[in-house]
């Protein structure tokens, strides 16, 4: 019978923790994690990158979406110990030299943000989509974003923003 690891001081002395190496937004980090820590716990609580949101914690909302080795995954369902040696990109890592990426710009132009809680996850999903498919149709955008829940916008402005970012019509005039 397998002996369950114990929590608290006793566990620390038994040291079930391990060190993993993560590249986050191009910077290498060594972090100490226990098996029970998820990727989102490391990103938010250890690296203080709070752009990635912890919403439902059960896979249903997409607010925690990050790119793991370039693929959009849910940081709330990924164990940190399984990410050793991998490359993570979060919403903080999309801007280059202080310049927002084209998806972020388009979200601003189209008013695709209301409360903003879903936005980091939406932008990560949309960025991954455009990496794979630079000219998606409206239907392909719907399908790619189906794992990202938004309680505010009604989604149309978000889909418009992804269309704009893919260079297929900037629908609304830009507000200055």
């Amino acid at each position, binding site marked *: *019978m*397998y*002996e*369950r*690891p*114990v*929590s608290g001081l006793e*566990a620390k002395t038994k040291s*079930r923790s391990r060190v993993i190496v993560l590249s986050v937004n191009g910077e290498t980090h060594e972090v100490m994690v*226990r*098996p*029970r*820590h*998820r990727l989102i*716990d490391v990103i938010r609580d250890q690296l203080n990158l709070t752009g990635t949101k912890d919403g439902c*914690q*059960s*896979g*249903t909302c*997409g607010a925690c*979406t990050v790119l793991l080795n370039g*693929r*959009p*995954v*849910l940081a*709330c*369902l*990924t*164990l940190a*110990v*399984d990410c050793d040696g991998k490359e993570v990109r979060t919403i903080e890592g999309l801007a280059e030299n202080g310049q927002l990426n084209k998806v972020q710009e388009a979200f601003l132009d189209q008013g695709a943000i209301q409360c903003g809680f879903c936005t980091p996850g939406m932008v990560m*999903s949309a960025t*991954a989509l455009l990496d794979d498919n630079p000219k998606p149709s409206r239907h392909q955008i*719907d*399908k*790619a*974003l*189906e*794992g*990202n*829940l938004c309680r505010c916008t009604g989604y149309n402005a978000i889909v418009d923003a992804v269309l704009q970012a893919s260079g297929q019509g900037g629908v609304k005039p830009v507000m200055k």
Partner: protein
Amino acid sequence: MILFEFDHERPNTPDEAVALLTHAGPDARLLAGGTDLIPNMRYRTVTPALLVSLGAIQPEAPREEKDGSLRLDALAKLVTIENSALVRKRAPMLAESAHTVAGNQIRQMGTLGGNLCQDTRCLYFNQQHDFQFVAPCYKRGGDCCYPFPRNDKSTCWSVFMSDIAPALIALKAEIEIQGEQGLRRQPLEALYAGDGLKPHKLGQAELLRAVIVPPASPRQGWGYHKESVRGGLEFGMAILAATVTLAADSKACEGARLALGAVREAPVRLTETEKAMAGQALDAERIAEIAEAASQEVNPLPHHGFTKAHLRDVIRIQMRRLLARAVERAVNPNA
């Protein structure tokens, strides 16, 4: 953070994974994509002491075997199945069923094996229980059942909601299981126990290695439908899959396989209806009768707010549509 301590191993080969499971005993669990297991661990409905992660084992790409069958690694991600040109050509129904699962992120993470081995679901089970002041149900080790209050038989009527299993059963797929004794091969149906408390007949130290889809017969058509309310990021209300093979005259039915998901503790095969279809000319009228018979052959469990009568209606109507589609495809494979 998951709210209890557990340990984690990351074997490099399936053999090592089996050895770890054997050594660790019943408190160990396999972890593939984690999209089914981690939410259940968050809710503390499953509390393993050790996770044996399959993350370090590289899945093989889908490939065609010498006898023309299609071999899929159980560790393959659902996106691989959905996008593989070989799968789309050789088993389009399988690609379509993988495409309907959850949302993109979950298909990027989730695996074929995890999909087929996922736990059954119930509105009263798959949720956070900490803030509820109610007694645990049978599936959580308690002594009651909420959706079936007169159930005093310790039976759990949770439903098995894989979108892919019915498609694979209609395609007559087999699975390869690896255990201490080596590999064994069996039809996919035989994996399911039909018991909500323990839905799978896998040994404690066994793992699913591969799924094998036999070559389609000539003049075989398929139809697949997942009924849901929203149509996105949602478990199925009822999942229907069928293959129909026509005789040389392209009219009479030579054979059929019909499978349903999400309406019982295991995927259901409609063997009586299949038998009744043999030799029949599948015109619109006949298809309507068959669909009616199909909806009567199964006794759907009411689940997630859907009544038995509603589920029967869904099965009847969608079965009629998808059988018509299957016949169309059997006559003209490019349809």
